[in-house]
C-alpha cells in the first residue's frame, strides 16, 4: 500500500461516525485531526448561493402559474386523440390474459355506474377485478400510468412484492410491430419506435418479476428497509419517466430492468452497522469488489470507490457485489420533462 493509502487508513481508524457527524453538523469534533478539517468544510458550506428577491419573485410567479395550470389540466383532462382508434399493445396482452373471465364479469356488471365506481378502485378493493376487466375492453383504461399509481398504492400499504409485480404490467409488452404506446399525464399518448427495446422491455418485465419473487422470499428488517427504499425510488422513477414528453421506450425498458435487478442486492457492499476494525482485514474482498465494480459505472474512480466501500463492508464479512447506484442514477435520464417544454 502506498504512503498515502496507509495514512488515509490511519486517519480512517481515528474518525468515529459520531465525531464525523459532529463535524458535518457544524459542531466541533473531539478528534483534533477532524477539527483541522473544519475550515475546509466551512468553505464548502459557504458555497450556498444567496438569492435576490427579484429572482425569488420571478420564480414564485412562474411556479404558481404552472401549479394552477397543472390543477386545471387534472380537473379537465382532454380526450386522448388516439384512444378510440388504436388499442395499446400492452392492453392487448392484458385482454388475452383476462379473456376467460371477461364475459362473466360483463354479464354481472351491466351498469355504467358500476364501471365508474370500479374505475377508481385499487388493488385489494372489492371492485378492482371488475376495474381491470372493464379496462381490458377499453372502458376506463388508465394504462401504464394507472398501473404505476396502483403499484405505488400497493407499496404504501406494505405489499412490496405485489407492487413490483404490478409495476411489471406497466412495462409495454411489445409483441408484433415494434411500436409501443404509453399514456402520459392520463390523457396524452406518445408513440415511440422500439427496435432493440423489445428486448429491453421484456427484460424489464422479467427483472421486475424476478425482483418481486426475491422480495417475496426476502428476510431481515435491514434488507427490507433497503428494498423499500429501492422500490420507492424505482416506482417514482417509472412514474416520472412516463410523464416525459420525450418518452423513450428503449431507455425506459433498460432503466427499469437495471433498477429491478438492483432490488434486494447489497450493491453497496456496505453493512448498516459498519465495523470500526482494521480495514486491512477486508482487502481480499475489496479486490473482489474492484473486479466486479466495473458494471455500468462511469469511471475508474467510481470503481475504486466501490472497492473502498467494500473495504469497510469486509470488516463485517460481507461480500461486495459490484455496481452501486446505477439504477437510480440512470433513471435520471428521462425522469423529467424537457426543459424547453415550458419557459
Amino acid at each position, binding site marked *: 500500500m502506498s504512503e498515502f493509502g496507509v495514512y488515509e487508513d490511519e486517519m480512517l481508524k481515528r474518525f468515529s461516525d459520531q465525531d464525523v457527524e459532529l463535524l458535518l453538523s457544524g459542531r466541533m469534533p473531539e478528534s483534533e485531526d477532524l477539527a483541522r478539517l473544519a475550515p475546509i468544510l466551512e468553505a*464548502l458550506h459557504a458555497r450556498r*448561493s444567496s438569492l435576490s428577491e427579484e429572482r425569488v419573485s420571478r420564480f414564485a410567479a412562474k411556479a404558481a402559474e404552472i401549479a394552477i395550470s397543472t390543477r386545471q389540466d387534472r380537473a379537465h383532462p382532454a380526450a386522448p386523440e388516439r384512444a378510440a382508434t388504436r388499442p395499446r399493445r400492452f392492453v392487448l396482452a392484458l385482454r388475452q390474459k383476462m379473456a376467460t373471465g371477461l364475459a362473466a364479469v360483463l354479464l354481472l356488471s351491466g351498469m355504467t355506474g358500476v364501471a365508474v365506481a370500479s374505475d377508481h378502485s385499487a388493488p385489494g378493493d372489492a371492485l378492482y377485478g371488475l376495474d381491470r376487466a372493464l379496462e381490458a375492453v377499453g372502458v376506463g383504461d388508465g394504462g401504464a400510468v394507472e398501473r404505476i399509481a396502483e403499484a405505488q398504492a400497493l407499496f404504501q400499504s406494505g405489499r412490496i412484492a405485489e407492487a413490483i409485480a404490478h409495476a411489471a404490467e406497466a412495462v409495454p409488452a411489445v409483441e408484433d410491430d415494434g411500436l409501443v404506446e404509453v399514456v402520459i399525464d392520463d390523457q396524452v399518448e406518445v408513440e415511440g419506435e422500439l427496435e432493440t427495446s423489445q428486448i429491453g422491455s421484456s427484460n424489464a418485465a422479467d427483472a421486475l418479476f424476478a425482483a418481486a419473487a426475491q422480495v417475496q422470499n426476502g428476510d431481515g428488517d435491514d434488507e427490507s428497509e433497503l428494498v423499500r427504499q429501492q422500490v420507492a425510488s424505482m416506482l417514482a422513477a417509472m412514474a416520472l419517466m412516463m410523464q416525459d414528453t420525450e418518452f423513450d421506450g428503449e431507455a425506459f425498458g433498460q432503466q427499469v430492468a437495471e433498477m429491478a435487478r438492483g432490488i434486494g442486492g447489497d450493491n453497496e457492499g456496505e453493512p448498516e452497522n459498519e465495523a470500526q476494525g482494521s480495514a486491512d482485514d477486508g482487502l481480499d474482498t475489496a479486490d473482489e469488489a474492484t473486479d466486479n465494480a466495473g458494471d455500468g459505472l462511469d469511471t475508474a*474512480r467510481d470503481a475504486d470507490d466501490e472497492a473502498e466501500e467494500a473495504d469497510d463492508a469486509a470488516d463485517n464479512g460481507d461480500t461486495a457485489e459490484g455496481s452501486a447506484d446505477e439504477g437510480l442514477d440512470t433513471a435520471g435520464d428521462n425522469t423529467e420533462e424537457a426543459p424547453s417544454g415550458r419557459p
Partner: protein
Amino acid sequence: MAFGEEAFESVLEACKAGAEWAWAAVYRDLAGPVTGYLASRGSAEPEDTTSEVFLKVARNVSNFTGDESSFRSWVFVIAHRTLLDERRNRGRRPSTAEFRAETAAEGGNVESEAMDQLVTDELQAAFDQLTESQRDVLALRMIAGLTVEQTAQVLGKREGAVKALQRRALAALKQIIDLEGVTL
C-alpha cells in the same frame, strides 16, 4: 428547513394551489443550497439549472406527498438527476475550470473576492482528489444541508454506505492537507 411540520403542510398545500407566497418561501429556503450543490458538482450554468430544477418541482408538486424532510430530499433527488442529465448532454465530466469560472463571476468586494478565490482554489484542489461518490456525499451534507438519511435517499445508497463515504472523504481530505501541504 425553516418551516416546521405544521407550517410546511400549509405551505405545501398552498404551493399545490398555486399561491405565489408559498412558492417564494420554498424557493428562498431551497434555491441557495440547490445552486450551491449544482455549482460544486460541476454544473456549467448552476443558476439556469436551478431554475430548471424548480420548474420540475412546480410541475410535479401535485404528485408529492410527504413531510418537510421528504420534500427536501425530493427536491435534491430532482437536482441530482438534472445534474446527471446535464452531464450526459455535455458528454463529459464536471471540470474544475467550470467551478472556478462560476465562482469568479459572482460579484462583490475585490479583496474579499481574492481571498474567497484562494480558499475556493484550495478547496477545489482538495475536493478534486476525492472520488465522485465522496464528492456527492460531502456536497449534499455540507452544501445542501441534508442528513445522512436524506443523502442516502438522494443517491440511492444505504445510510451505512453514506457514513462510510463521508468518513473516507474526510480521511482523504486530512491526508491531502497533511501530506500535500494544502493549507486552508
